């Protein structure tokens, strides 16, 4: 198994220049769960729990190409802000090793912490103008639940992925992943904390593949 993975890795590595030149594209649509609330105008959503399952409201999905990819040298720093006593964005997909800042944009204290096994941290109480902005590096893949010790209703999710190829759908569930390497992969769609769907894909350079879930 490991051997085969290594072989795959070599193969990908050998064709990488080509792939970089003209990457493959996957686009399609995910059948999202029905939204229970009226569609919001602004592109704002929040984390809700329904029967113990965390998801975004209105529903959004994260589509990513599963696989082992080389670590990139430098990753851009992401942000999960606290604004109007919610996390913004409520769901943040990142690549493993990404540094995330937690700026406080409210006029009140926040105390962001996570007891998730993937990443436990506690930023302590901090004011809006606190510098440096509290930051955490997420170096294990998995789902992290963000909470605020002061505002118990606040929930945020960070989906830590080992792949650099991921994208969030729009509200209709449409997505487009471009610049993908050619090869045989598994395309996964994270829908909520309990549901991740997957489909095998064969990617060819310069080709656009259409994949719909489910």
């Amino acid at each position, binding site marked *: 198994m490991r051997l085969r993975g290594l072989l795959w890795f070599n193969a990908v590595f050998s064709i990488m220049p080509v792939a970089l030149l003209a990457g493959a594209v996957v686009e399609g649509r995910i059948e999202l769960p029905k939204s229970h609330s009226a569609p919001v105008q602004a592109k704002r959503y929040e984390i809700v729990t329904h029967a113990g399952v965390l998801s975004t409201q209105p529903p959004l999905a994260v589509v990513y190409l599963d696989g082992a990819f080389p670590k990139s040298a430098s990753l851009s720093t992401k942000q999960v802000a606290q604004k109007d006593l919610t996390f913004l964005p409520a769901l943040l997909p990142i690549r493993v090793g990404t540094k995330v800042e937690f700026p406080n944009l409210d006029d009140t204290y926040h105390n962001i*912490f996570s*007891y998730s096994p993937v990443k*436990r941290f506690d930023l302590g109480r901090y004011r809006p103008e606190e510098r440096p902005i509290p930051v955490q590096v997420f170096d294990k893949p998995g789902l992290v639940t963000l909470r605020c010790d002061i505002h118990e209703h606040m929930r945020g999710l960070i989906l830590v992925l080992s792949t650099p190829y991921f994208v969030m759908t729009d509200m209709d569930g449409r997505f487009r992943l471009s610049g993908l390497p050619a090869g045989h992969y598994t395309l996964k769609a994270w829908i909520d904390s309990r549901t991740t769907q997957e489909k095998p894909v064969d990617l060819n350079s310069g080709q656009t593949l259409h994949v719909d879930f489910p």
Partner: protein
Amino acid sequence: MSSPVQARNESVASFRTRLFTAMMIIVATLTVLGLYLAQRKVTADAERNLQENFQAELSSLHKLEELRDAALADRCDKLAAKPRIHAAIEDNAIDLLYPSATDELRDLMEGEEPPPEQAAQSLHAKFYRFLDGQGAVIRPPNPYDVGGLDTKTEAQLALNKLPDTQQIGYIQENGGGGTFDEVIAVPIFSTYTGDVISALVIGFKPFEVKEKHTDVGMKSGVWANGQLHLPSLPKSAQASLSEKIANAVASSDREQDNFRVNVDGVPRLLFYKRLNPGSLFPPAYEICVYPLADSIVQLHRLRWQIGGAGALILLGGFVASHFVALRLSAPVKKLALDSEENRAQRKRAEAALASTAQELERSSRYSADASHQLKSPVTVFRLGLEALLAREGLKPEVYEQLSGLLHQTHRLTGVIDDLLLLSRVDAGHLQIASAPVDLSQLIDEWLDDLGALPDSPDVKIEKEFPGGLFVAGEKRYTSLIVQNLLENARKYNRLDGRIRVSAHRNAKDVVLTIGNTGRTIPPGENIFERFHHSSTPSAVSGHGMGLNLARELARLHGGDVRLVRSEIDWTEFEVRFPAADGVNAVA
């Protein structure tokens, strides 16, 4: 002579005794009943007083407790809602549960134990633990932070299942014998599913009623799990009490009750009341022991008072009954005397009546015998005289004498006939063959005869009666009545006098009134008496049987004869005959 009086006195005395006894029984019964009711009421009142006392003390205690429990519950709910505690449980970070809670509950655990009077405000916890999904205790990594408990005590915090609501329990530290701790279990709900995922159990020092009056006041404590904590009682007494409470609780499903116990030879009333009704924790009871010595003394005093009152009532009743019996027996005594006199009188009267009846019978028999004996010789005598008078050639003076004698024999016959008739009436042998008799005709005939009598004085006769007045009777006796009265009217008349005969019929009778002029009958003179002779000298002679006979006969017919009036120169008799029905109407 003395024996009836003695008997009477004895019977009156026995009546008095019986009356007195009956009254005393009633008074005694009422008194005993009253005493019984009063006693019962006193006992019930005493128990109710104790009960109220207990409830009052308990309710003041419970008010404080409720206040604290409400504050605690509020506090615990807030604690249970803490995000870190939720995060530790929900995000599967149990190792972080107690460290997180230590921060959150620090203020609850820190500081000194507050004095009891501030316990309600201070909410100082002794320990706390979390329960897992099955209700078992989650062991803390560092017991010092969360209040140390030995394993046995800690095990008492576990529940069969997680509670939906706040639960109150009582546990005893150090495996029994020590003080009880009050524990409150608060459910922790998942923010994801809303289900109960854990519970926070916090232990506090329980409230204790301050013993204000150690000797007389009530002593209170807690009983749970077969253990009693009542520090003001000696250990040995606690053990026996604990057993009794266990029995009482086991045998009754009541949440509160009371019973009497003896502690160290002192009677006490023990109340118990469930402290945690409906709790998942084992039932715990508030125990109050109330000494009965005071109330028993009070009860005794009251009993004495009631008894004294009862004795007074009995004494009063005794005296009153005695007097009433005397008062009531006095008229009875009089009544007894009277009735005895009456009885004697009646006996005398009866004896007199018997002898009179005998005499009467004897006399009537005698007159009947005498009449019979007389009748034959008189008849012989009369027949002889008539035969002599029938002879020719009697000297006129002899003839005159003989006819005088004959006249006397006629009178004698009349008297004998009257006597015979009367004796038959007296003996009750005379039977009346009742038939309609034309009274008008009878009177007319007799009036005609009256005028024809030789020695009739010159009297004027007035008649005032209709024809055809029929009466019911036997004709010859009716005729005799009329004859006797008319003859009297003529006989006792004066010269140039008058006789008025009137008759009329009323509802049932025919009334014949015969009045005549002449001398007055003095009042008080019993003219109807047999062989009556007028007290006033008179020229007229009679044998004194006519009126008597007339009246006896009239009475025998169902009528009567009476003297209506006797004034100056006017005497009037009235005869009533029963009317003969139907005949008069026809006539």
